[in-house]
């Protein structure tokens, strides 16, 4: 198989459209696939994470979604709508996982073909599709806003809020070489800066 010249992720390549990435993947470019995974893994994870699945389940969902993507790349009609495809697929994978986990029908109002209420209809354990897309976009906005912060603030917020090990203030003080007593006030200033960035993006929808 002839492999294309691999991608080396640079800032300009981060602007590549989903369609271009998909095209390169289909032409055998492993670098494009790496870039695609790096770009969308967090957002795929955000769907099961938001709805309370465990870390292991979140990764199981991610594995199924990216496997499905690898097998479906050539069938996606509009590759620039890849995020929508990923949301749809991630919801299906989550639904399957939750369905297998619970297997307990809940009551809901719905009607059968005869017009009578359905006795055992399920209430979806997932939010509405609109909410899922909104949630997805909010995570994207959050991470874009983080990227626009100064390095010091970005590091501090990442350590306090995003590090899975949740380091305490002693560890943060040592890692960032700042006095422990200044972490709290600095955190507030950094959060204010983050909010200012997010307000430019209409993060709360009412700013």
């Amino acid at each position, binding site marked *: 198989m002839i492999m294309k010249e691999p991608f080396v992720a640079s800032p300009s390549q981060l602007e590549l459209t989903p369609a271009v990435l998909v095209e390169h993947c289909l032409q055998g470019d492993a670098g494009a696939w790496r870039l695609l995974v790096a770009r969308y893994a967090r957002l795929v994870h955000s769907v099961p994470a938001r709805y309370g699945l465990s870390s292991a389940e979140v990764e199981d969902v991610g594995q199924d979604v990216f496997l499905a993507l690898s097998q479906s790349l050539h069938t996606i009609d509009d590759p620039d709508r890849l995020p929508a495809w990923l949301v749809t697929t991630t919801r299906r994978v989550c639904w399957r996982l939750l369905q297998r986990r619970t297997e307990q029908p809940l009551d809901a109002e719905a009607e059968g073909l005869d017009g009578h209420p359905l006795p055992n209809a399920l209430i979806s354990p997932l939010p509405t599709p609109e909410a899922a897309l909104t949630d997805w976009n909010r995570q994207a906005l959050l991470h874009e806003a983080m990227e626009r912060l100064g390095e010091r603030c970005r590091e501090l917020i990442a350590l306090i809020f995003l590090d899975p090990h949740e380091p305490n203030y002693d560890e943060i003080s040592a890692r960032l070489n700042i006095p422990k007593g200044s972490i709290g006030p600095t955190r507030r200033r950094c*959060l204010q800066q983050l909010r200012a960035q997010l307000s430019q993006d209409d993060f709360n929808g009412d700013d």
Partner: protein
Amino acid sequence: MSHLAPEQLYAAIFDHTQLGEVEQQHVDACPTCRRTLGQLEELAQELVVARKSRPAQAALDRYQALFDEVERLPSPLSRVWQQISALLVWDSRRQLTLQGVRSAAAATAYRLLYATEQTEVELLVEPDDHHFRIRGEIIVADAPAPMLVQWLDAGGAIRYETNSNAEGQFAQHGIAPGVYGMSIVSASGPTIDIERLEIM
């Protein structure tokens, strides 16, 4: 009393510090402080989701290794995400047309039947205040179970979604006229796709 200080608002959300009685009374009466607290709460929640969503390097490595699975062309091999297309086998509007009923094309209720080798999907489409209501039943050969039913736009985004009950019956209200893809997802087994469903 002027608005609460930013330190108090941030501490209330990010350190879970209890507001004093006076401060709480102010918040109860002050839309501005309540709004700020609400926005900080949203930010705190998004940061929690962001932490839980952050992929571990090992997970990223596994996903990136899936490049070996990328199919450049349709493959007969078993796929994790099997999809089967259901074909239209009966349309009540067509029957009315064949019988010479002039109003067959008007916005009246109609039934559609789609089928695969193993499954039938019957849909009753009814006008519903400039929109439509779809009631349906999924009839499968083996034991039925709850299924996820989705209507997708041309780009593959979900427009409507509901669940069937354990008998395979479902209903969705408020569907705008248009052309949709429809997918029926089961907990195990292939997804059934109706590739073009005209609701009008």
